[in-house]
């Protein structure tokens, strides 16, 4: 599979989840095992550009596909726009859910930028719904939503 733009080949057991293989097999410990049952979203990664829970997928299912983890969001150590906005808007406290929030948030920002109109003009409602798979026990939801809305306004060249 291709992980953060690099081809990786590993021997795994079929019962190993993608989350376990990313963390233990590849040392990519950004994705976290929060609930291990696709409720909390702290294990979220992009699978062929689509956000999913890596805990509820077998690593073997990823063969031949593209994976982006939080480690792949920043480029050469430079924070992405959304990552900078997370810092600016105080969108994290303990940081446990943050990897998942940023991975899914990145996808939401791209999708919102690509859309012409937001249904019912309810941007807050839409962000709330699209991020509803990412729980934050520290309660940073307002900061997270603000970071996403702010990141949407910034163009790629900035």
């Amino acid at each position, binding site marked *: 599979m291709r992980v953060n733009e690099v081809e990786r080949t590993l021997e795994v057991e079929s*019962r190993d989840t993608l989350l376990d293989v990313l963390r233990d097999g590849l040392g990519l410990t950004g994705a976290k095992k929060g609930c291990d049952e*696709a409720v909390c*979203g702290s294990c979220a990664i992009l699978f062929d550009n689509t*956000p*999913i829970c890596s805990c509820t*997928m*077998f690593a073997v299912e990823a*063969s031949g596909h593209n994976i982006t983890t939080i480690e792949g969001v920043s480029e050469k150590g430079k924070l992405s726009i959304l990552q900078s906005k997370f810092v600016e808007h105080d969108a994290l406290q303990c940081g446990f859910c943050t990897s998942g929030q940023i991975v899914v948030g990145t996808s939401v920002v791209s999708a919102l930028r690509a859309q012409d109109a937001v249904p019912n003009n309810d941007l807050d409602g839409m962000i709330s719904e699209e991020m*509803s*798979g990412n729980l934050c026990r520290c309660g940073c939801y307002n900061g997270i939503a603000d970071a996403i809305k702010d990141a949407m306004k910034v163009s790629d060249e900035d």
Partner: protein
Amino acid sequence: MAIRQFDYFAPDTLQDALRLLSEYKKSKVLAGGQSIIPLMKLNLVEVDHIIDLKGILGLSSIKTTRDHRGRKEISLGPLVTHSKIQNSEIIGEYCPLLSETARGIGHPLVRNRGTIGGSICHADPAADYCAALLALGARLKAQSSNAERTFGAEEFFLGPFSTALAREEILTEIIVPEISSGRIGYSIKKMSMGHGSFPLVVVSTLIKVSGSSCDNARIALAGVADKPFRVPIAENELIGKDVSLEAKESVLDAAKIVSMSCSPQPDLDASADYKRRMVEVLTRRALFESIERCG
């Protein structure tokens, strides 16, 4: 808990998948994995062989077809994800009840992986699609190595986590009627403990109006019995009634009948009485919304 070891196959063809399913007696097919993988982690299902269907072409399409009377239908492959259903233009135009059902399942990360086929075959008696498919009168096609069978939605769900599929059969197609022409209104209402949590009660209704009177009504429930079911006595309350004038009384009566016809189980989240009361409320809301959507 560690998942028990199993062998993983990713066949290219349906025939290969069916052959593997027949050969290995403790095998299960894998679609999106959002139901089966959590069960495997809890050791609630014994699986020695997993047959991943995702490499097989042709199981995730959405297209329009015609039934034997020339009426438009929508055919879905079992591997279509909830997200794809939610965003599908074809389904949004011709069968929006399915779009709305898909939109309410879990949360986006689950919807990006979970599939309609997987959800239906898992057959949790409270699952969202069960109620919608019953209301729609959907047909389900399945294949085994040597035969193809077709089921009506009502004969497909047999009990909790139990469908009419034989062990060596694979669901290959879900067919729903088009509900956008003529004056047909739909609704799906559910109650769960939190946004995206597993539903406790689901009510789905379809109302068809001719002139100003209701000439067809379908009310389907999930979560309040060991399998989803319709309530014909309540449906008959509405048929023939003038929707502009008499509807309100009929809706209230129908909702009461529906609530009395179910036998919900109490659980950690809600008592049986509370669920029964919620069935009445949700049925009322669903029927009013369906009538309004008839236009």
